[in-house]
């Protein structure tokens, strides 16, 4: 049984290797902005958002895309995602981080 499980794992690994690696997009957060604050993505292209904070605990929330992450100091929050609908989708910090928190937002534009 153990051997079969091992073989299945190998097959799965081979299948994974054929997939193109998702594009990694670093996003840095700091009081009170995301950088970049505007992302242009292609419909159907898998990406991984790599979120970091330069100062305090932040949030990344794009409710229309169902994406959410806590961004903790010293850690990278990875958000894998494949856009499946075109349009402009807002994202914002949803962890109250100071006097400019309300303005801390950005947009993801998905082109078909």
């Amino acid at each position, binding site marked *: 049984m153990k051997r079969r499980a091992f073989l299945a794992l190998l097959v799965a690994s081979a299948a994974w290797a054929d997939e193109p690696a998702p594009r990694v997009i670093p996003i840095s957060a700091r009081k009170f902005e995301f950088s970049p604050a505007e992302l242009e993505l292609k419909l159907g292209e898998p990406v991984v958002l790599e979120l970091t904070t330069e100062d305090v605990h932040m949030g990344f929330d794009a*409710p*229309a895309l169902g994406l959410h992450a806590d961004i903790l100091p010293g850690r990278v929050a990875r958000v894998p995602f494949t856009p499946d609908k075109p349009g402009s989708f807002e994202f*914002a*910090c949803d962890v*109250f981080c*100071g*006097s400019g928190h309300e303005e801390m937002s950005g947009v993801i534009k998905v082109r078909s």
Partner: protein
Amino acid sequence: MKKAVAAVNSLNEPPDFIVFTGDLTHTTDDPKERRRRLAQFKEIVSELKVKDVRFMPGEHDASLDRGEAYQEFFGKTHYTFDHKGVHFIALDNVSDPAGRIGDEQLAWLAADLAKQPRDSRIVVLTHRPLFPLYPQWDWATRDGDKAIELLMPHRNATVFYGHIHQEHHFKTAHIEHHAAKSLIFPQPAPGSVPKRAPVAWDPAQPYRGLGFRQIEAERGEYKLTEFPVVRV
């Protein structure tokens, strides 16, 4: 704020008690300034003729220090009280900067609700909406659905909240959620403008969008009356 105090003091029929649903002060990153503002707020509202006044924090008061300064001035951030047969529950969804009530407080809420008969009249007072009104603008409570779930078996539960600085009414099943106007910085309707920002101040209508609400509880119904922040 002083004008609102004067307007409340001049009501023909004074209320039994007054509730502030949070955002007593504007945000500051400076702990000393936060305390100075809270002290100033407390001094202004001490002029209210009605002395039974209940307070709650908003994110502008409590989210940067987990409610520490707020508690120095106003005590606990979540509590209950009873008045003329109505059970009031103040819930804190702002001391956590992520806008969560948190498991500990939810357990406290569950224990309190377990003591209430299913048909008793319950009013929840809180700052953020417990339902996801417009999460794009952070007009939500991350675990608000858990609080609503706990309230669901109670047939006469109603929520009054702040945060969105405008009048708003919504229902989750039988539970009504009412937001009142603010005393400063009116906000636009959810999603009505590209960026969330207070409605621009118009010197021709300096008090536009500002006000307070009177709630009369009679025979299981709540009658809401909106008042402008200054007497006109």
